[in-house]
């Protein structure tokens, strides 16, 4: 170790033994002086003279002690510690100021951290895979006519495309993964309780190709895919939650859709699959059993492995190192064009070519649109909030420090260096920011979780290293600004200030006032922008909430049922008919029906091509008559609370052997039948086969979401359709729907203990979820608006109160010279009103620009909504008035005599 390091260590050690070292030195010095005096006495001096001579020869003991002390330990820590203690005392002395600053900071910084960490996770974070820059999601611009596509059209591929890309495209790896149901969740059983877990069927190279390691056990190999082996890899999270992190989990059995799968591995911590917002719990190799069709579709419609026109596989690729993204894409595109029509028909000249694209291996694929835009908008809003919060704290600090100007000039006069004062101020601001930062981090952890659950993201969003860096750099920046902003004011005072009279001190320099005004005006302008945005978004939410649904979702319980041991058309229909009968017998249940797609969930089957009474529908080409379709059960419209305008609802009599019937909505009747009196007309497919009679017309009502326009729609009854894999049960019950759940569970367990209730929830919740994102953003924007207003109120109040208190001498003089109290009040109010008006004038054009950016997120609102603008302007004006009322009142109460006597 070098001498310097040793010295530093010794000094550090000495830091903790100051007293002891002092007393040791005292002893040594005393002994030395005594011995020296004895020596002089021996040489013949008198005792007194000897003592004096020894002191002379030894030198100044006090000086030596001081020098030893400085040398013994490092002054740096002592100084910093002293500054920190002094700073803490200063903060404690003004508790209200401290609390306001810390709260302001924690809200401002915390909101930014939370929004940033969600944005980071959704838009920036890459999949935790090896060398992620070589991994891509495969997207296509479309799929050929005649293909049957499931899932997101841009990420669905057929089995032949997968095989061809894999074998011929020269890519290092092509990984396939397929959800096992619409919701992504599948019935599983670990012990005795059936439940749902999220899982994908994947290719044998899924883990090796992505480069995801195993916590224990093994990943899949090609043989697993070829043999469709009954093995599974579970996620780290599932391992912890369902197996208590047990070491001997490998080899245990997990029942998936009632089939036993042997656990062969546990994936590395952090890898949550490739399904974005839904973290996967397990993976199994591609399966060939009919129960394991892609997306849980009925096998009667064809298995994904054998029916070659099914486009339902999601693909990812890993490009070979040394091959550029463009080269790999060009090669893959060539193969894709050759095989895209395989299993559908011969490709003809002039057929459309579809284009592949590679999307970066982000944690969330394809979150490019509405959600990303909303997040960016939110980030901008919290940025504004932070700016307001920061300027607020700066103003508060400056106001506080200028009352400390006397203190600073006194310290300068007493010989403090400017460096010391700067260090002192920086320490104080660091303390403040550290307190605020700690509070902000705690706030951000909670806020991130809340944001995630509101946005229905189940995967891990918690702040990571990068987010921490982001927050720390924001905090550091704030600390510098807070430390340096008041520094100039403190320095400008100079030591001579201390001797000046208070009258000169009380005159705030016009430059400083102007700077303060500029800050307030900017704040008000930003507040107007935030309030206008909040008004527009809240208006949108109000419009969404009051849009009539055309049905009564209140009091409806919904859950999915996917019978495991039921096969074929007759058996499955009989199962659901029996289930409906059984559920009707539960005491209190008003009615029971079912639907293959849940209204409000966003899913919808779209179809086209229909003839009405054997003719073109209302003069349109049959192929252009597009409509939505849902397959439901008896009593459906009565259960849903939809008004039947004409004809009747489906009933138990509409069995498989009865004449085929369907029900249409008003839009369908008007558009394709040409009249609302559509009952009795007969629909058929364009070839004229499969005739079905319309038995009812129902009122138009919302189907996929609240924001949709009315579209032609028809309903058929499941007893007259093909095999059913899964239906959603809709139960109308009195009181709270969820209270019925335990009873229903008991009934279902009696039928089949392996059959879970899939996604049980209330029908109202489904519609609420369909606008959850808009609601989230509107409410957050509202919160930020309120926050901004509160910040501005405190800032304005603080500044005005401070100014009035500094001008009390001037006000006293004015009053002594005959100014009326009202005039004084007006003087203060006028100042703040001028500032407010200027801020509003600057804010309105900015708000108009921001509103234009928001346009696509609005529903039933124009971006130039007058009410929102009025609300923002009045809000700001009211707050400004309130904030200045107290200082104005205080100015009016200034007693001229006592104010003048202070001089």
């Amino acid at each position, binding site marked *: 170790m070098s001498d310097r390091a040793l010295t530093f260590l010794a000094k550090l050690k000495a830091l903790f033994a100051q007293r002891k070292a002092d007393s040791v030195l005292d*002893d040594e010095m005393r*002994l030395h002086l005594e011995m020296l005096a004895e020596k002089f006495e021996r040489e013949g001096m008198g005792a007194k003279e000897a003592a004096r001579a020894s002191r002379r*020869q030894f030198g100044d*003991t006090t000086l030596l002690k001081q*020098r030893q002390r400085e*040398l013994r330990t490092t002054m740096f820590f002592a100084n910093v510690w002293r500054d920190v203690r002094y700073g803490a005392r200063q903060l404690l002395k003004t508790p209200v100021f401290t609390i306001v600053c810390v709260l302001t900071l924690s809200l401002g910084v915390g909101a930014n951290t939370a929004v940033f960490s969600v944005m980071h996770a959704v838009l920036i974070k890459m999949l935790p895979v090896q060398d992620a820059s070589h991994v891509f999601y495969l997207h296509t611009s479309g799929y050929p006519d005649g293909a049957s596509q499931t899932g997101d059209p841009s990420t669905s591929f057929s089995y032949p495309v997968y095989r061809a890309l894999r074998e011929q495209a020269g890519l290092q790896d092509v990984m396939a993964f397929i959800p096992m149901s619409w919701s992504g969740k599948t019935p599983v059983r670990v012990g005795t309780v059936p439940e749902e877990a999220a899982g994908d069927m994947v290719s044998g190279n899924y883990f090796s190709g992505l480069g995801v390691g195993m916590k224990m056990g093994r990943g899949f190999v090609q043989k697993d895919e070829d043999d469709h082996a009954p093995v599974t890899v579970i996620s780290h999270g599932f391992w912890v939650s369902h197996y208590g992190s047990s070491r001997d989990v490998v080899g245990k059995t997990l029942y998936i859709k009632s089939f036993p799968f042997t656990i062969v591995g546990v994936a590395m911590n952090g890898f949550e699959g490739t399904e974005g917002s839904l973290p996967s719990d397990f993976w199994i190799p591609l399966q060939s059993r009919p129960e394991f069709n892609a997306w849980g579709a009925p096998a009667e419609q064809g298995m994904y492995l054998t029916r070659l026109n099914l486009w339902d596989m999601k693909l990812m690729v890993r490009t070979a190192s040394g091959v550029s993204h463009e080269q790999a894409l060009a090669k893959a595109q060539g193969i894709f064009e050759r095989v895209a029509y395989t299993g559908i028909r011969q490709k003809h000249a002039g057929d459309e070519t579809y284009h592949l694209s590679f999307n970066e291996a982000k944690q969330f694929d394809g979150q490019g649109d509405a959600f990303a835009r909303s997040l960016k908008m939110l980030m901008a809003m919290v940025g504004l909030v932070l700016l307001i919060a920061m300027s607020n704290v700066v103003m508060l600090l400056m106001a506080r420090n200028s009352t400390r100007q006397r203190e600073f000039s006194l310290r300068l006069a007493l010989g403090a260096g400017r460096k010391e004062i700067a260090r002192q101020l920086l320490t104080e601001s660091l303390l403040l920011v550290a307190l605020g930062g700690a509070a902000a981090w705690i706030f951000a952890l909670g806020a991130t979780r809340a944001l995630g659950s509101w946005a229905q993201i189940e995967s891990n969003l918690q702040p990571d290293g990068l987010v921490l860096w982001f927050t720390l750099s924001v905090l550091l920046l704030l600390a510098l600004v807070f430390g340096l902003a008041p520094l100039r004011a403190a320095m400008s005072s100079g030591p001579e200030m201390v001797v000046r009279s208070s009258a000169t001190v009380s005159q705030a320099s016009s430059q400083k006032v102007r700077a303060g005004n500029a800050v307030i005006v900017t704040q008000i302008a930003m507040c107007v922008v935030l309030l206008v945005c909040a008004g527009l978004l809240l208006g949108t939410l109000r419009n969404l909430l009051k849009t009539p649904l055309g049905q009564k979702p209140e009091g409806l319980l919904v859950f999915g049922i996917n019978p495991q041991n039921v096969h074929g058309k007759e058996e499955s229909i009989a199962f659901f008919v029996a289930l409906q009968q059984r559920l009707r017998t539960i005491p209190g249940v008003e009615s029971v029906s079912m639907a293959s797609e849940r209204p409000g969930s966003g899913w919808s089957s779209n179809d086209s091509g229909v003839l009405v009474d054997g003719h073109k529908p209302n003069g349109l080409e049959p192929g252009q008559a597009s409509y939505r379709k849902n397959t439901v059960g008896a009593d459906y419209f009565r259960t849903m609370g939809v008004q039947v305008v004409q004809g009747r609802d489906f009933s138990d009599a509409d069995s498989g052997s009865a004449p085929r019937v369907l029900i249409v909505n008003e839009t369908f009747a008007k558009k394709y039948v040409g009249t609302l009196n559509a009952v009795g007309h007969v629909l058929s497919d364009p070839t004229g086969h499969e005739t079905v009679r319309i038995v009812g017309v129902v009122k138009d009502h919302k189907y996929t979401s609240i924001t949709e326009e009315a579209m032609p729609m028809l309903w058929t009854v499941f007893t007259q359709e093909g095999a059913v894999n899964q239906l959603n049960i809709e139960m109308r019950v009195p009181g709270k729907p969820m209270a019925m759940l335990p009873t229903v569970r008991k009934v279902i367990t009696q039928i089949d203990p392996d059959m879970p209730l899939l996604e049980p929830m209330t029908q109202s919740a489904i519609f609420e979820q369909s606008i959850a994102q808009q609601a989230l953003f509107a409410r957050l924007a509202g919160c930020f608006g309120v926050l901004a207003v509160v910040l501005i109120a405190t800032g304005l109040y603080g500044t005005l109160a401070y100014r009035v208190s500094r001008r009390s001498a001037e006000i006293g003089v004015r009053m002594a010279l005959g100014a009326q109290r009202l005039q004084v009040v007006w003087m203060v109010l006028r100042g703040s009103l001028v500032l407010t008006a200027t801020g509003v004038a600057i804010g309105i054009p900015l708000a108009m620009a921001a509103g234009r950016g928001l346009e696509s997120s609005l529903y039933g609102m124009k971006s130039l909504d007058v009410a929102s603008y009025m609300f923002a302007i009045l809000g700001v004006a009211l707050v400004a008035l309130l904030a200045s009322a107290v200082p104005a009142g205080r100015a009016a109460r200034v007693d001229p005599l006592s104010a003048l006597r202070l001089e």
Partner: protein
Amino acid sequence: MAADKSEVLQGTLDLMILKTLQALGPLHGFGIARRIEQLSEDVLTLNEGTVYTSLLRLQQKNWIISEWGVSENNRRARFYSITKRGMKQLAVETENWERISAVIGHVLALEAKV
């Protein structure tokens, strides 16, 4: 210079103390001061307190160590002794000193001739 006594340079005091401790073994501060006074034949004046500053500096570098002991007339005193590191340092410093003093002596001799 007219004065017949010289101030002690800071670095040289450290060197003198190290040498003293090497030559005489463990000593207390008073003993060190006496020894230097004796050796310098009263040419150097010394505020004896500065010895302690020097001793602290040397301890921090781990060149000497100290412990409590009993002085010749039965007083509790702090005794300082040189460490292995200190020995090495002394050798280096001695060599340095000799080289520099030789060079300076040489330079001064030159100037005298001119």
